[in-house]
């Protein structure tokens, strides 16, 4: 398109509601993720991650006519629809009405060899500097956890095989970002190094970005240790470091996360997140 720059003049979408500098952190997370998803990829969407729910829909509508979305075992391509509304409640099962096939036919994990172009999104109760994640719990003694987590879901298998994945967190705190996870339920870059995954025989591409309400983090090529990639507008590097339980590598000056374009906000708010889920 190329002609939608937003700004102060009246733009083609007919309302100033979609000003690029008027967006929520969750909207920015959604747009950042959407831009990074490639046409033709298969997107596996889990639960309780509103920015991800929005991102895959936005990418599919804006530049991914050959993407496939997998929600709740239903596999679909719905690029022909005008709108892909977010569900009322994360996991509304009516999403299966969009299915072209089901992957939960009793052989959900029978084709992991074809997951090179599959992408998924992971959370964690703890995340360490190498992108290892913990959904098991917190506490030194497994039999007496201080906090019992929800469990590993399918993350051990997905993180092993998908071409790449994103760590997506709804909050950014030193309790989540820890120097060492008490338990690892999905192996990211292990103890570091570009060959960290090859050493243990994991074929998938590992975590690419960690996206939070404050910033985007990537992994340094050589060490695979977390590095500040961009700061969301209005956030300082020191703010992020203060909320992170280990030292984040930074290359000053850290760029600002690209804001959503007017077109992106327009599509996001009129065709995906029509009830403002990401702005609450």
């Amino acid at each position, binding site marked *: 398109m190329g002609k939608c720059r937003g700004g102060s003049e009246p733009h083609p979408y007919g309302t100033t509601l979609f000003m690029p500098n008027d967006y929520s952190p969750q909207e920015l997370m959604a747009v950042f993720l959407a831009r990074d998803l490639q046409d033709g990829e298969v997107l596996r969407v889990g639960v309780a991650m509103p920015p991800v729910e929005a991102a895959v829909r936005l990418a599919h509508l804006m530049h991914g006519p050959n993407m496939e979305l997998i929600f709740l075992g239903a596999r679909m391509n719905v690029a022909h629809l005008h709108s892909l509304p977010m569900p009322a409640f994360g996991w509304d099962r009516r999403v299966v009405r969009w299915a072209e096939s089901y992957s939960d036919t009793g052989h959900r994990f029978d084709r992991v060899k074809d997951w090179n172009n599959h992408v998924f999104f992971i959370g964690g109760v703890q995340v360490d500097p190498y992108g290892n994640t913990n959904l098991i719990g917190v506490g030194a003694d*497994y039999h007496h956890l201080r906090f*019992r987590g929800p469990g*590993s879901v399918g993350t*051990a298998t997905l993180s*092993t095989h998908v071409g790449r994945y994103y760590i997506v967190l709804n909050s950014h705190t030193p309790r989540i970002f820890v120097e060492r996870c008490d338990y690892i339920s999905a192996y990211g870059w292990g103890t570091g190094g570009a060959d960290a995954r090859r050493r243990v*025989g994991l074929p998938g591409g590992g975590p690419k970005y960690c996206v939070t309400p404050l910033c985007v983090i990537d992994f340094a090529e050589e060490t695979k240790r977390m590095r500040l990639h961009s700061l969301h507008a209005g956030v300082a590097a020191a703010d992020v470091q203060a909320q992170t339980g280990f030292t984040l590598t930074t290359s000053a000056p850290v760029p600002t996360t690209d804001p959503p374009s007017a077109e992106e906000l327009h599509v996001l708010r009129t065709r995906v997140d029509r009830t403002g889920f990401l702005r609450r």
Partner: protein
Amino acid sequence: MAHEKGSYVNGTERRQRIIDEVEAASWVQDGMTIAVGSPAPMALVRQLIRRGVKDLTVIDSGLSLDLLVAAGCVRQAVSYYAGGGFGVPVAPSFRRAVERGEIVVWECEEGILTTGLQAAAQSLPFLPWRGGVGTSLPEVNPDLKVFSDPLKGETLLAVPPIKPDVTLLHAAAADAYGNVQHLGGPGWIDLFLQRAADRTVVQVERVIANEEVRANPWATTIAAVDAVVRAPYGAHPFYSRGFYVQDNDQLRMYVEAATAAAQENRPEALAYYLAHYCREPVTHGDYLERVGIKRLLSLYEY
């Protein structure tokens, strides 16, 4: 069947497999391993709670697992996911019971669980899986053994068979002979749970004619299930694809009650929920009366 020369004990009919939820739940005895499908077959789950079954090993996830824990039925949870929903990241009764050491977790993950179920279904002493290599899972669950594969020497997990005594499922429809047909896909790992189990009960929204099954045999997701229970609205307060969406009001009520009991030492609302919805109704019909037809009809899918 014995027979004499040239003569047969003939003329018996094809056996029907429909039983009621009370009889079906009686298949589950204290100490057994049960699996609960998705959506949870709540008519059966409530019967287990009503009977006060104890010391179960339960393969389940989410709030149905939480309810069984809250009701005191569970000794061990085989779970890859115990989320709460409604802003509560971890199912509250499950979380408290684990943190207090009242129940044990057989720590696993979806790929590992389905691998173990597959091993049981295939009468194999183990199956290998790669997902979980490099993680803490084999440390916190010593039944998962790290080994070198015999052909290439790659590092894998050996997953032992996971074998439910009874699997309880919910589906859209079945005929009287146990041919089950889902709508909108069978739930998550339900087909694995069924294959691995000694016996499986499926509760259904509708019992359909055998001819309807034969008209579309590919739609038969499970053949010859051991028992069929007629349970319209049987997954309530969860959804049943093709019939109704989940009842978020009741689920939120449960999560709030369970959270109050677990986090704030206020057990009254949870006790009321368990008594009013699980222990006092004798049959599934009694439960539905308590929910009320107007509430139920408001849950249509579209």
